[in-house]
């Protein structure tokens, strides 16, 4: 091979951004078209440095905006390359138009989204507003809770996304600063093992196949558009889950680390449970253990795959729980939070139908403290003890001023 390999220690001290950049190097990305934005910039900067230092054979395309970055990725993916980029917040928002192009054109691009609040007011810190903005775009969405996850899920994202039965783009989410800039021990794969897992890129309907010319990005009106979107949704709903399951299994064989579409912690006998994503999962796990020491059967459910939404796995995880709270880290814009909405949809038809309430927390990087979670688990236990929901359905956690609740 024309590029150099890198010797890694078994455990490296990496933040989430550098872990993702190393994964992009080990996957040997052909094209990264990128525009910098805090806090995701070090991912594409890292790839560019690896490229300049001859650790990757590829192209780095500097563009004038995030819209152009994803457009460049779409062109490169249609041409037949392994493609990735990274963004956050306002950049993600600018990318949205092209996200729908990428999924509709069935191009397996991997986008690292370092989650950050959306203006106004302008804010560079982590919440899930950008992640929620992409949830109807037809992409597969993986959520990392720590730098290790950000590293591992990149390999899994390429493996699933590029499968010829799938051919749908994938996002790997990590929390801005809390994961992206917080260094932790990350167990590494060797370059050969990592590349062996994702495999050599297999093009499909690529524009550089001159014997089979194709036109990408065609127009359809009322006569065909519905069939195309139906096909896309069908494949997202039926073909992606088995491939993710297989990738999780294969990755466990390779690394010993097991991921699940729905991560369950202390859920076997839980009466009360908190559903959350990102770095909050680790905080909630710690508090759940402390609540158990106080006699409250507390558990935590982390969503690992946000889209396609693991409807049945969620039902299975929560069917025997009595009182549940969803933690949504995004301003819900006039309704319930996304997780509350999805949980309600998944559980409404369950015979056991658990009690469900929703919390809005952590906007613009506001800390979710252990004290918040102690209060929350205590409140859920009060629901169990009285047999009904004792609070409004939607409450804000950690905001200054008079208590804010709705519904």
């Amino acid at each position: 091979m024309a590029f150099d390999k890198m010797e890694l220690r078994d455990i490296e001290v990496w933040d989430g951004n550098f872990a993702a950049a190393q994964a992009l190097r080990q996957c040997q990305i052909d094209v990264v078209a990128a525009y910098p934005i805090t806090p995701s910039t070090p991912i594409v900067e890292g790839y560019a440095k690896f490229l300049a230092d001859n650790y990757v054979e590829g192209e780095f395309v500097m563009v004038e905006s995030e819209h152009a970055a994803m457009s460049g990725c779409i062109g490169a993916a249609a041409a037949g390359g392994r493609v990735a980029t990274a963004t956050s917040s306002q950049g993600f928002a600018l990318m949205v138009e092209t996200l729908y192009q990428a999924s509709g054109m069935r191009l397996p691009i991997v986008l690292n989204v370092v989650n950050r609040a959306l203006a106004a007011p302008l804010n560079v810190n982590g919440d899930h507003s950008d992640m929620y903005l992409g949830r109807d775009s037809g992409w597969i969405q993986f959520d990392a809770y720590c730098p290790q996850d950000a590293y591992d899920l990149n390999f899994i994202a390429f493996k699933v996304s590029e499968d010829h039965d799938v051919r749908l783009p994938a996002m790997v989410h990590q929390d801005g600063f809390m994961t992206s800039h917080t260094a932790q021990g990350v167990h590494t794969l060797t370059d050969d093992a990592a590349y062996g897992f994702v495999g050599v890129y297999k093009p499909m309907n690529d524009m550089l196949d001159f014997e089979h010319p194709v036109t990408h990005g065609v127009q359809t009106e009322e006569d065909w558009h519905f069939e195309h979107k139906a096909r896309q949704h069908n494949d997202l709903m039926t073909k992606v889950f088995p491939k993710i399951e297989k990738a999780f299994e294969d990755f466990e064989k390779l690394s010993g680390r097991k991921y699940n579409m729905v991560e369950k912690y202390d859920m076997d006998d839980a009466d009360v449970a908190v559903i959350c994503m990102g770095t909050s999962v680790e905080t909630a796990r710690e508090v759940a253990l402390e609540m158990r020491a106080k006699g409250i059967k507390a558990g935590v459910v982390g969503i690992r795959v946000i889209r396609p939404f693991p409807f049945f796995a969620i039902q299975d995880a929560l069917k025997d729980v009595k009182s549940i709270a969803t933690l949504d880290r995004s301003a819900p814009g006039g309704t319930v939070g996304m997780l509350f909405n999805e949980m309600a949809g998944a559980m409404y038809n369950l015979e056991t139908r658990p009690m469900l309430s929703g919390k809005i927390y952590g906007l613009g990087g506001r800390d979710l403290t252990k004290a918040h979670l102690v209060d929350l688990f205590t409140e859920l236990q009060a629901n169990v003890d009285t047999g009904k929901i004792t609070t409004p359905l939607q409450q804000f956690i950690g905001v200054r001023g008079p208590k804010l609740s709705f519904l």
Partner: protein
Amino acid sequence: MANKGWDEFEIGAMLRTFDGSIDDIAGTSQEDRSYSENSSYTASVADWRLIKPVFNKDYCIDCQFCWIYCPDVSIISRDKKLIGVDMDHCKGCGICVEVCPTNPKSLLMYDEHDDEETVIANWPKKDEEEA
């Protein structure tokens, strides 16, 4: 094709220009290529046009300017000789007329319904002032 269901076509917003594989496409004239029904070559968009270019071969010097500038590849040239306009794909933009360097021009725009033989019989004379 009109009755195909959602599960009966290839994935992606993608169409194939040819049925099966091709080789030496550069050495094959358009009329000899196996264009698929999805190729725009097989679809007429003549009704987009309000005015049309008429080609008068008496004045053409085969400079190929029109062939190079036509945005719809609608100037038909064979062996570097202009032989006509592809009226299924010409949109009537008039660029070929603009770039034509002869005096009088070898291509002029006329109303879509004008009779070609009549307009050629009444073709403008050489502009002595410009010459």
